[in-house]
């Protein structure tokens, strides 16, 4: 599957296309294979997202997972600072990233 990511223009936060808007959580990402270019052009123009691009991903029983480690790290946060990730209270959250 192809999912869409980028950064929030104002805050720089990593965001994912959930089909209607942008979410901080990779779990909300949806397959955008068919309309990726159209969505990204529209959302960039509306300044909803910055530096957006398409990511190869896989739907797993645990949720959507980017195929490449770089996007997996983007999805959660730095592996060396679990306290700064999106799930600081969950020590196992990084298990699928690395």
């Amino acid at each position, binding site marked *: 599957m192809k999912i869409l990511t980028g950064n929030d223009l104002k805050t*720089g936060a990593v965001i994912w296309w959930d089909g209607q808007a942008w979410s901080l959580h990779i779990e909300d990402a949806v397959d955008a294979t068919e309309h990726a270019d159209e969505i990204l052009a529209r959302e960039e123009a509306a*300044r909803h997202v*910055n*530096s957006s691009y398409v990511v190869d991903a896989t739907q797993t029983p645990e949720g959507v997972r980017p195929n490449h480690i770089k996007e997996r790290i983007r999805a959660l946060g730095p592996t060396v600072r679990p306290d700064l990730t999106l799930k600081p209270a969950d020590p196992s959250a990084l298990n699928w990233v690395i």
Partner: protein
Amino acid sequence: MYKYDSYDQEMVDVRVEEFRDQTRRRLDGTLAEENFRPLRLQNGLYLQLHAYMLRVAVPYGTLSSAQMRMLGDIADKYDRGYGHFTTRQNIQYNWIKLEEAPDILADLATVEMHAIQTSGNCIRNISSDQYAGAAADELIDPRPYAELLRQWSSFHPEFLHLPRKFKIAVIASKTDRAAMRLHDIGIEIVKNDAGEIGCAFYVGGGMGRTPMIAPLINPFVPLDQLITYSEACLRVYNRYGRRDNKYKARIKILVHEMGKDEYTRQVEEEFAHLLTQGIEPPIAELERIIPHFADPAFDAATSDDLDLSDPDFKLWVDNNTVAHKAKGYVIATVSLKPVGGIPGDASADQIRLMADLARDYSFDELRVTHAQNIVFPHVKKADLYTVWQKLDAAGLSTANLDTIGDIIACPGLDYCSLANARSIPVAQKIAERFKAQDRLDTIGELKLKISGCINACGHHHAGHIGILGVDRKGVENYQLSLGGSEGADTSLGTITGPGFSEDGVVDAVEKATNLYLAQRQEGERFLDTYRRIGMAPFKEAIYG
């Protein structure tokens, strides 16, 4: 240290307001990202893996306590409570919001700081010896000349759009502590046979994907022609440096392809022409700058004795302090490499504590080192135990300077959008493996450097042991190299062979150090043993 005059301050203040307006226009849609991107980069604002990243310039690594305190306050107010000191003697913040970036620059301007020319194809922050003005072995203080170069290179209209970024280092000691020959221009202040002071120019060094050691192109340029000669070097580069291929655009490629002799001939020709143009700053400007770097009021009556009865304190003194030019003082380095920590990171509280200690015990001055540590340049021996106790209470007393625990590591794939592999976890695992103090002491000086991609921000080419992270079909892999050095004996490391997994490279480092311990002769460092016995036995130990 240097204090802004009204021109300096106005330039920075105007630039802040200019960027505030540019940011407003980006946020309201007047400016598209493709137009805004070069503007934000010229103000040090990158878009990195997780957020915007702001790189703040620390000219030649020198900070006042007020500046250091501001860096801590910014970490709290605008970031997530910490900052990352870099291999270019700067500081980076990893979690910046675009809408707040102009306010950060405004805060920085209140303490005479900025982020100008910390990115882009221009002359970057001038780096220097972190012990400048304090070292017992220096000829003169190189910082007035680094400051003159800073002023010359700031907003220089001819050099704001070079073929590629450009880095200059200035030192004045035979012991090179600034990786001088791995810069685009390395300047060593020297004395000639007639006893005159001048500059030796090394041009065309660098790391990155094509590492090169800068050759000497002129052994003696009079100090009062420093800027003119620098201008000539840049002009020839700007004229012929490649702009069609960013990977071949650095001056090292030009010097290599043109040949050192032809490049030098053209520089000398340009230099002769420029001498007729009178572009050297008036001597009055240098005379204005030099007093800013006058020695502080050292206490000539202070004791030269040091009570080393506390063994932990003695260990830190042995590892983290060096001789000062003034009797009764030392240069003390705070290691930002605790076992399990992130090399170069410091919390806002730690940054403010170091600011306070500099104010109270080091004549208000600190230095950032290219090895990602912090220096108190002028500490009275009588105060040293107190300083150490306060550092120890804040987790800043790691006694590992220049050992295998004092690892240079770039942010790597944990933070950097260019990286191919993570650097920090490798550094942490190596530091953990070698954490026993007796092991560090037995191994002695061993400079280990890790980069997460071929851009080599972690200086892996210059590591006695270097590690380069690469992407092998989506999996992190690590190449090991041996024999690099960034000192006066500058050399580039040689790759040992096939790469390793994250754990595998830690094992390989251990095998290399074990071989060194088995093979070394009296007084040899790891690097010395490697140079004497060569790669073959190390390969056998690592792969055999």
